[in-house]
């Protein structure tokens, strides 16, 4: 089973990397970009085919390692 975990900064948390990318897009004259926030994507393969079990395992993975929940949110998508 394949899953994707997306980790994003909580709103209000300063994102200097996103700001730098935003500035670089502006310097490329790519129009219409008003804001960029950078996040992380983890593509994860799971041996188990049990979706509920996978969701539980990935939730634990996010809470214990993949996200720092002081400043980050996470979303789990199971294919």
């Amino acid at each position, binding site marked *: 089973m394949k899953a994707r975990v997306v980790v994003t900064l909580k709103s209000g*948390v*300063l994102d*200097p*990397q996103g*700001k*730098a990318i935003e500035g670089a897009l502006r310097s490329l004259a790519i129009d219409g970009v008003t804001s960029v926030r950078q996040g992380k994507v983890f593509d994860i393969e799971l041996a188990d085919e049990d979706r509920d079990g996978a969701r539980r395992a990935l939730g634990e993975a996010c809470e*214990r*390692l*993949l996200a*720092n929940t*002081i*400043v980050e949110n996470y979303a789990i998508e199971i294919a």
Partner: protein
Amino acid sequence: MKAAVILFPGSNREGDAARALSDLTGQAPAVVWHAEADLPQGVDLVVLPGGFSYGDYLRCGAIAARSPIMRAVARHAERGGLVLGICNGFQILCEAGLLPGVLMRNAKRRFLCKMQHLRVENAATPFTRGYAEGQVVKFAIAHGEGNFEADPATLDAIEDAGQVAFRYSDAAGRVDAAANPNGSERNIAGVFNSRFNVLGLMPHPENLIDPLVGGTDGRALFAALALAA
């Protein structure tokens, strides 16, 4: 005083920490590899040195915080043992949940490598009793991710409990935005845990022990630790 310096893949200030400890405690620290499950017998103080453990993969300090030795460090702290995290060591302690908050990318994105004044906020701990409250000291800073962040309730709680150890200041001890090198909330440069046996700070006291390299303000921290056990 028996000290141990933990070595993670990518640590690079362990030699500086060991030199400061040897100089001021009179005994060379044990150097302990991160994959060990236990600390050496009788260790009073654990030092997590600066560097770039695991190349700052995932988040700075995140992988090192989950290494086997950190379970032993957590047990040591639980028993009341002393733990000092410097720079990357501070990031590791936050990621391990042994200290509040998190260290984010410097607000102005620049890697900072310079001398920095700090104001001592709490001089009644095993780490800081060699200083006076309000004293201004000069340590070196060298980091790209030293922007201390926590939610407002946590910040208020650590302020009220006296858990702020050092704040970024100017030479006169003024704590304001102009003296804040990296965007840290409330100019916080170092924090204690609620029991005051764990300290994390971004600046490098271990580099200010010899007048040859610009000052000796770091000596008092290690001298205080030498007397702590």
